């Protein structure tokens, strides 16, 4: 899929979970966009909250060619504390632990490598919140 320029262009957003905030209606988006659903073009780049809840999830057993070998892949739509909602992967848990509403936090992980010779592609995934008692 992505060759170097297409991947590189998205680095700040993929690596640091930077999205957009609409300065008129307050809505947050990830990834960033130039026009809000409210019609405003007054959007600023802003980091997305790093904690949230699982809004929906699935477990993929037949991935696309680029992700073969990684199954079962846990994909979720997460809603973060600041109201952004976006697709991501879940990690550091097993399929039977997945629940709608489970609290999760952002972590920097490797999404895939382009074979032995191509790029190593990183991004943000979400894991169950680390216990700190």
């Amino acid at each position, binding site marked *: 899929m992505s060759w170097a320029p297409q991947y590189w262009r998205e680095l700040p957003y993929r690596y640091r979970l930077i999205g957009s905030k609409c300065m008129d209606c307050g809505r947050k988006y990830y990834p960033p966009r130039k026009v809000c659903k409210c019609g405003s073009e007054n959007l600023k780049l802003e980091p997305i909250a790093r904690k949230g809840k699982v*809004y929906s999830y699935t477990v*993929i057993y*037949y991935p696309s060619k680029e992700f073969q070998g990684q199954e079962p892949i846990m994909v979720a739509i997460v809603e973060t504390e600041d109201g952004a909602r976006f697709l991501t992967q879940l990690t550091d848990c097993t399929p039977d632990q997945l629940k709608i509403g489970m609290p999760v936090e952002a972590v920097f992980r490797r999404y895939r490598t382009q074979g032995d010779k191509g790029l190593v592609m990183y991004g943000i995934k979400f894991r169950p919140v680390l216990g700190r008692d």
Partner: protein
Amino acid sequence: MRKVAVIGVGCIKVGEHWKKSLRDLCFEAFKNALNDAGIESQMIDGLYIGNMSSGYYQRQEHLGSLVADSLGLIGVPAVKIESACSSAGFTFKEAVQAVASGMHEIVAAIGVEKMTEVKTPDATSALVMAADHDYEAEFGVTFVGLNALIKRRYMHDYNVKDEDIAYFSVHCHKYGANNPHAQYPFPIKLETVMKSPIVADPIRLFECAGIGDGAAVAILCPLEKARELIDEDRIVEVAGVGAATDTIRLADHDSLTSFKATILATKRAVSSAKITLKDIDLVEVHDAFSITGIISLEDMGFYKPGQAAKAAVEGELEKDGKLPTNMSGGLKSRGHPVGATGIYQIIEVVQQLRGEFGKNQVEDAQIGAAQNIGGVGGSVTVTILRRFR
């Protein structure tokens, strides 16, 4: 704007056509449509080709020229229209606009897809191009996965049982068994669906439309001209077409369990046809997955959110039920050669309105609707057809 009619339809059986190339599929379907209309190919003055992934499967673009050439219509203006799984629906809409506007006289709308050129993981990669590449495909989701996210949330929000959603496949196969151009023309049991392997949890294999090759053609002309060319009993009028888009990313939709594009496209189609929803006698909905067929019935307005699965189980969608649905077998049983599906649906509605649908004929069908979805609701067309006499 002139009124537009469908004067000929033709298609090939959906399946694995190892010996036939993309050109061959188009040629055969086109010939069937010409014979059905009883006209000469030289009368065609415009070609619209619907296809999603010829670039990926066949490493071939420029289908306009390729198809015009293959059909012996060199010189005729032709163009490929792509809108993921709703390519054919949009292609038909463009063809209708061409005739309604007066810019063309007789056009052919051709939907074609040849998916069997590649192994399944490649087909999965091709299909996920209907989604956002950088923030959905590159995050490992597949097209089945996106629909699974919808099904999971739907079950949560409406407390609908997995089995009741899966039943939609059983319903479709019951009728697909009688469809001569269906890919899987046989009934299946609910137990079989529930035992089939999970592809992307909670969607099972037999809730998913399969991979196949297909080509479907509709020939259109102004309604007045149709009366000169074919028997008036066989004329089907394009009563209204509605189309809409929504955000490409699933998570950007207002809701995970409802496709706003279907709601808008239906309103636009119904309004342009000057009818009400109640006037629709039968419908072909886009059941790429059982859940998708179910929410389509709800988004079109036939059922309240969370209610359509139960309606299927309770027999409301049967041939003699309240709303005969997917008498063709739907995408699940008839098949889903992606860029051609929308026109297969239209052909099936046309045949119903002509009284030519055999065992699955809905009695006294006057008005039918076909709904075609691209991606997970990123684009939708709804086509309403009406029997002329």
